[in-house]
């Protein structure tokens, strides 16, 4: 059994991005989705700081400290890209103009509830950023995350225990072990990594799982973690 690494999870999510979509990518694994988009999928990546059409990281000789994304990465702008102020940027998000946002998560519940903004660490302040706007208002919310915590605790749960980001918002979850859709009846496994049995996955999951009749093998090309 070979779980996907974090970049392979990003690769897998990227395969589901369709032509011409307007996509927002969260900090962490999600930003790497941009690296694996099919060249023929003409995608605009929106960043909450107002960048519409975020391109790859700037090469060292082309860094511009004013051209950054919401994660403070020095980026480039794709052809046809533009920049708006924060009120317009979130009008775009809250107004339902983002086709899909791909977010990291601490926990996802069987009803689609998402917890991804506050781990309640001692001595650490909260950081909500644009997560609540994106989770509540994007047309589709996909989560990319590892299937369990480092301690082996499940992140897919009957109900989240950490503070919620938004309710009933997650439509699909990509993990190192599976691709899971969230439908009104609960979680449906669409793809499962080779060598893992449904029972194995259930043991790592804190919510009931249905398995799609056409459940496939979750595969990704080899990608070395940078």
């Amino acid at each position, binding site marked *: 059994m070979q779980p996907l690494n974090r970049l392979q999870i990003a690769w897998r999510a990227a395969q589901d991005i369709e032509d011409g979509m307007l996509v927002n990518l969260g900090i962490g694994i999600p930003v790497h989705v941009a690296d694996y988009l099919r060249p023929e999928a003409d995608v605009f990546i929106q960043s909450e*700081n107002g960048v519409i059409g975020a391109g790859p990281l700037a090469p060292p000789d082309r860094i511009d400290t004013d051209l950054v994304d919401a994660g403070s990465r020095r980026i480039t702008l794709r052809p046809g890209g533009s920049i708006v102020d*924060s009120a317009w940027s*979130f009008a775009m998000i*809250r107004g339902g103009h983002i086709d899909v946002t791909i977010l990291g998560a601490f926990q996802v519940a069987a009803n689609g509830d998402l917890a991804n903004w506050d781990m309640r660490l001692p001595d650490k302040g909260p950081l909500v950023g644009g997560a609540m706007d994106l989770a509540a208002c994007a047309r589709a919310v996909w989560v990319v995350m590892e299937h369990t915590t480092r301690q082996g605790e499940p992140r897919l749960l009957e109900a989240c225990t950490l503070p919620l980001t938004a309710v009933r918002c997650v439509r699909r979850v990509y993990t190192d072990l599976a691709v899971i859709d969230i439908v009104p009846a609960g979680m449906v496994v669409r793809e499962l990594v080779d060598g893992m049995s449904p029972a194995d996955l259930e043991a790592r999951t804190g919510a009931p799982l249905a398995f799609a009749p056409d459940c496939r093998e979750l595969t990704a090309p080899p990608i070395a973690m940078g």
Partner: protein
Amino acid sequence: MSIDKRAGSAAEALADVPDGATVLISGFGGAGFPNVLIRALRDRAPKALTLVVNSATHRYSLTHELIEAGLVRKVVCTAARGRDNEPSPFERLWVEGRIKLECVPQGTFAERIRAGGAGIPAFYTPVGVGTELAGGKERRTFEGRDYILEPAIKGDLALVRADAADRYGNLAFRYAQMNFGPVMAMAARVAVAEVRAVLSEPMPHDRVQLPGTFVDRVVAVGA
């Protein structure tokens, strides 16, 4: 007497900031931080400030210097978590109960500030419904979906970073510098902009991204 919003220095532009002021500070994602103005404000040292700023802990912003100097009573922000394991200056004071925090989702943050400048006292938003950040807020259903009521934010002072200005206070931004600058300038009684350069001629109309009618003072600070 013709309009001239050019101030001689950051210190001069901030000479009248009183104790207890609510100060809106632009900047996000590493761009648009008015760091020259922030430092001048620290030197002026008004007490018991309320800061309205996207992040209380961003590593490229000097906001933390105002906090470390003990000038800040409360922070309204979207991000208050430092990057390091060790607590940031904000987190240290916050854990000790010596500074107040209002954590706001970022779109609500931008929209509340815009509302403050646009004469809207409150609006409904779907963001935050069902989360602890909706605690105590009025909830209401429109066409089958739940929303919460959010109040406007206004400021006594806005500190904004832009690329260029003219004597009329017109501003042009570079790339992602813009972020909260326009709405913060609009929502503050006095808006001060630091810019790379003040043009000697009026800015061409199609280069203006924020009309000078929203800007009170500009200071050239170089790159």
